C-alpha cells in the first residue's frame, strides 16, 4: 500500500542539522576558503565592471598594501600597520561593552570628542612650554572627554534603562557639530581647516608610528587578559548573559555597566589622543572617518576576542587599501573599494553557517528501499539529549528548510 504512494512522498532536497564541535583547523580552513572565494568573485566583478584582468586585480592589492618598490614598500607597510592599529584600538574600545550586550555604536563620537579635547589642549596650551607636560595634559583631556561621552549613555541605561543604541548614535552627531563649531572658532580666516598642529607630537624613534603601534599591541594583550582572566571581565560576561543571574550572585549590574563604559571611554580617549598626537596632528569632523563603525564589524567578526581582532582589523584594512589602489589605478569611484570589502565580509560572515551547521542532501537511493534502514552507524552511548530544558533557554538544535524546488523532479 505504501509503495503506491511513494511518488507522492518527497523528502526535502536539503535539510540542515547542527554541527557538533568542529576541529579548530577545519573551521580555519572553511574561513580561508570563504575569503578566497570572495576574492575570486571580486576579481570577476572587477573584470566586468572596471575592466581589470585578474592579474591587475591582485596586483593592485599587492601594490596597495606593500608598494611597488622598496621605498614605497616601507611607507605602505607602515600605513597598513598604523591603519590597522587605530582600527584595532577602537575595536578594543567597543568590545567590553559588546560582551556585556551593551550596544554602544557611539565610538565614532567618543573618539572624535577625545581628539577634539587633545587638539584643544594644544590650541589653548601655548603657555605650556614643556612638550612632555603638554602631552600628558592632552592625554588626560582626551581620556576625560572619551569617558564623558561614553559614560553618559551608560548612566541613563543603568538608572532609567534608556536605549543605549539610540543614545550613543545620537551622541555621534553632537560630537561632530562640536568639532565643526571649534574649527570655525579656531580658524579666523573662515576656512575651518586647522592645519597641522606644530606641537604635541609623540616622539618618533625609528618610525613615527612605532610607539603608537606597539602601544596598541600591548593594549590588545592587556584587554585579552582583562576580558578572559580578570574578575571584572568575568562580571562583564555574566551581566551580558543574564542580568538576573548577576543580581542573584550579588553583582551590582548598574555599577558594572558604568564601569565598563568608563573603560570604553578610556580606550576611546586614547584613540583620540593618538589621532592628534601620533597620526594626523590635527582634527577635522572626519578625523575618525567611520572607524567607529568599522570597529564594530571588526569586533563582531572576531567574536569579541581581542587576539582574533588583530586578524580581522588587518583583513579590513588590507581590503580597503588594495581596493583603494584598484580604484586609483582604474580611475573609478571610491565606492568600488566598499563593494569589495562588503563582498568579502559577507562571505566571512556567511561561512559561519557552514561551520555551525551541516547540510544534508536527499538520499539518492531512498525510494528504492521499502523500509528505511535504521542507519548503520553504531550507536555509541546515547548520552545527553537536548530535549526541553528547565529554563527554556535551549535553542532549536536544528531546523528544516522546506525546499520549493523539491516538487519538480
Amino acid at each position, binding site marked *: *500500500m*505504501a509503495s503506491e*504512494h*511513494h511518488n*507522492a*512522498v*518527497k523528502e*526535502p532536497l536539503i*535539510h540542515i*542539522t*547542527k*554541527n*557538533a*564541535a568542529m576541529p579548530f583547523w577545519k573551521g580555519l580552513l572553511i574561513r580561508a576558503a570563504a575569503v578566497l572565494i570572495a576574492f575570486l568573485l571580486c576579481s570577476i566583478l572587477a573584470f566586468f565592471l572596471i575592466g581589470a584582468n585578474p592579474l591587475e586585480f591582485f596586483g593592485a592589492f599587492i601594490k596597495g598594501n606593500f608598494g611597488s618598490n622598496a621605498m614605497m614598500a616601507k611607507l605602505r607597510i607602515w600605513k597598513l600597520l598604523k591603519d590597522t592599529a587605530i582600527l584595532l584600538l577602537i575595536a578594543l574600545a567597543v568590545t567590553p561593552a559588546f560582551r556585556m550586550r551593551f550596544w554602544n555604536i557611539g565610538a565614532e563620537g567618543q573618539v572624535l570628542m577625545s581628539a577634539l579635547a587633545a587638539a584643544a589642549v594644544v590650541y589653548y596650551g601655548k603657555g605650556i612650554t614643556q612638550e612632555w607636560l603638554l602631552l600628558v595634559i592632552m592625554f588626560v583631556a582626551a581620556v576625560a572627554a572619551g569617558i564623558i561621552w561614553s559614560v553618559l549613555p551608560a548612566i541613563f541605561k543603568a538608572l532609567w534603562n534608556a536605549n543605549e543604541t539610540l543614545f550613543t548614535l545620537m551622541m555621534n552627531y553632537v560630537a561632530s557639530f562640536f568639532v565643526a563649531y571649534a574649527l570655525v572658532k579656531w580658524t579666523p580666516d573662515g576656512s575651518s581647516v586647522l592645519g597641522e598642529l606644530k606641537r604635541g607630537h609623540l616622539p618618533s624613534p625609528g618610525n613615527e608610528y612605532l610607539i603608537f603601534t606597539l602601544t596598541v599591541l600591548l593594549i590588545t594583550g592587556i584587554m585579552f*587578559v582583562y576580558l578572559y*582572566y*580578570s*574578575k*571584572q*571581565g*568575568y562580571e562583564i*560576561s*555574566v551581566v551580558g*548573559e*543574564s542580568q*538576573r*543571574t548577576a*543580581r*542573584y*550572585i*550579588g*553583582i*551590582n549590574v548598574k555599577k558594572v555597566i558604568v564601569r565598563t563604559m568608563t573603560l570604553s571611554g578610556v580606550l576611546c580617549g586614547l584613540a583620540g589622543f593618538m589621532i592628534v598626537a601620533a597620526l594626523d596632528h590635527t582634527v577635522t569632523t572626519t578625523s575618525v572617518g567611520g572607524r567607529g563603525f568599522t570597529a564594530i564589524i571588526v569586533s563582531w567578526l572576531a567574536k569579541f576576542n581581542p587576539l582574533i581582532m588583530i586578524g580581522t582589523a588587518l583583513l579590513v584594512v588590507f581590503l580597503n587599501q588594495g581596493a583603494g589602489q584598484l580604484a586609483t589605478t582604474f580611475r573609478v569611484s571610491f565606492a568600488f573599494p566598499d563593494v569589495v570589502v562588503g563582498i568579502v565580509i559577507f562571505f566571512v560572515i556567511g561561512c559561519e553557517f557552514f561551520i555551525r551547521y551541516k547540510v544534508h542532501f536527499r538520499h539518492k537511493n531512498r525510494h528504492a528501499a521499502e*523500509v*528505511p*534502514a*535504521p*542507519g548503520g552507524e553504531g*550507536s*555509541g552511548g*546515547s*548520552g*545527553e*539529549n*537536548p*530535549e*526541553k*530544558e*528547565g*529554563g*527554556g*533557554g*535551549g*535553542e*532549536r*538544535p*536544528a*531546523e*528544516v528548510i*522546506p525546499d520549493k524546488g523539491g516538487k519538480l523532479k
Partner: protein
Amino acid sequence: MEQKEARNIPLALELKGITKTFGTIKANYNVDLELKHGEILALLGENGSGKTTLMNMVAGIYYPDEGQIFVDGEEVVIRSPKDAFDHKIGMIHQHFKLVDLFSAAENVVLGVKDGKKFNISEVNERVQKIADRYGFIIDPKEKVHEMSVSQKQTVEILKVLYRGADILILDEPTAVLTPQETAKLFAVLRKMKEDGKSIIIITHKLHEVLSISDRVAVLRKGEYIGTVNTSESTESSLTEMMVGKKITLNIDRSEPHDVVERLSVSGLSGLNAEGLKVLDNVSFTAYGGEILGIAGIAGSGQRELLEAIAGIYSPESGEILYNDPKGGAQVNLRKKTPLQIRELGVRLSFVPEDRLGMGLVGSMDITDNIMLRSYRSGFVLLNRSDPKKLAEEIVNDLEVATPHLNTPVRRLSGGNVQKVLVGREIASAPSLLMAAYPVRGLDINSSYAIYNLLNEQKERGVAVILVGEDLDVLLALCDRILVINSGRVTGILDGRTATKEEVGFLMTKSDRVENTDPEGGAA
C-alpha cells in the same frame, strides 16, 4: 517489522524507524509508534528520553534523519507545522506561543488562511462553539495577558482544534496545572476522545498516565521500549519500563535532631511589579536540622519569599532575622543585597526556580558556573583552578552526564543542569539552603539524587527550605510544611501527620479563615 497492510481500519498515526540525531547525540533511534483512532495514548519516558523530539517531528518542528510517518495509513512528509496541520495534526507545546495583547479568539485565528473575510464576532462565536462542545470555560474576548496559565493552555488547545486537528499532541500539559485544573483538562480530553479525536499526551507523572490513557508507549534513552494497555499496567510496571530497573519509591526521612532556630521571618509583606500584594504578612521560623516544605499553587508568593530572603527582591515591610550558627548573633537580612548578605558571613545558598535564567549562565561551561560563587576570592585576576577542581568533584560525585567540563551548561539536560546548580550551592557549606522546585522536569533517578542531597544537608544541621509542587514528595520528605495561598501563610503542618487533602485544602481555599481581612476577595 512486518508490514501491516492487511489492516482494515488504518491507524491514525504510525511512525516507523524514526531516527533523529543532534550532532553526536541520538535523540531518537529507530522509534516506532502507533496511535489508533479515538484513543488517548500516553507517551512516557524519563527526561531526555526523546519524547518531545519525537513529537516535534510529527508536528513539523524537526525533520527526521531516518524513518517514515504514516497518517491514516498513507505515508506523509511533514516539513513544517503547516504540513502537520494539513494532515490534521496539532501540537500543544509546553511553552505557550501566544500574543499577550490579543484576545483568545484573535490568537486562535492568527495565521489561519481560510479565504474568508475576517470577522471577529463570527470568530468569537465559532471559538465559543468549540469551547462549549468540549466543555472549555473561556471568554473568547478576554485578552491573553489577563489569563491564568490554565486558560492560556485552553487557548492553545482551541487554536489546534480550530484548525481542524484530529490528532492532538500535548507536551506535558499538566506540568503547569493545579490538581483541580488537571482534572478539568482530563475531562475535556475524554470528551474529545468520545468525539473521535486521537490524542497523544506526553508526561512523566504515572498516576496521570493511569487515570487518563488507554495505552502507554514508553521511550527510554531515545529508544522505543514498547506499548502496553493501561488497564494491564501498574505504577511499578510502568516505572520499570521507563527506567529499565526497579527502583524503590521510598524517600528517607530521619528524625530531626539538635534543631536550632536559624531563620525567623515575621510580618513580611511586599508588592510585585504591577503593585499587587504578593506577600501578605508572612511569618515563620526555619530550624537548622530540618526540612521545611513550602506548598502552594504556583505563583502564590513562593518565589518572592525566597528571593526576599536571598536579598534579590525587596519587600515593603517585615523582618528576616538570621541566627548565626557560630556566634549566635542575629542579623536582619531585609534591605540587604546578596553581596552584603554574604559579607555578613551568612552562609545562604539558593537554588532558584529558573535555573538557566537565574542560577546559572547558560553559555558558560561548568567550571565558570561553579565559579559564580567563588570568583571574588582572587586579586584582580580570576582563580579558575579551585572552581575547576570543584567542578570535577561535582561531575563525579553527582554523576553529571556531560561530554566535557567545557561544555556550555545549556547543552546539558535539565537534570544535569540542576545537579550542577545544586552541587555548587551545597559546596559552599551553607547553614541555610533554599531550593525552589529543585526536581521540576527531572526524571525519577535525578529527583532522588536531589532528595538525598537535601537530606544530607539536613543531617548536617542545615536549615533546608524546599518549595515544591508534588505534594506526595513534600509529605514524604519534609519535617514541616508551610502552606502559602495568595501570599498568605494558611497553615504550618507537621509533615509526618498531615494529609494530602489537608494541604490541598489550605492551598486552594479562597476565603481567608485565619486572617481577619475585611476586604476578603469575592472569588
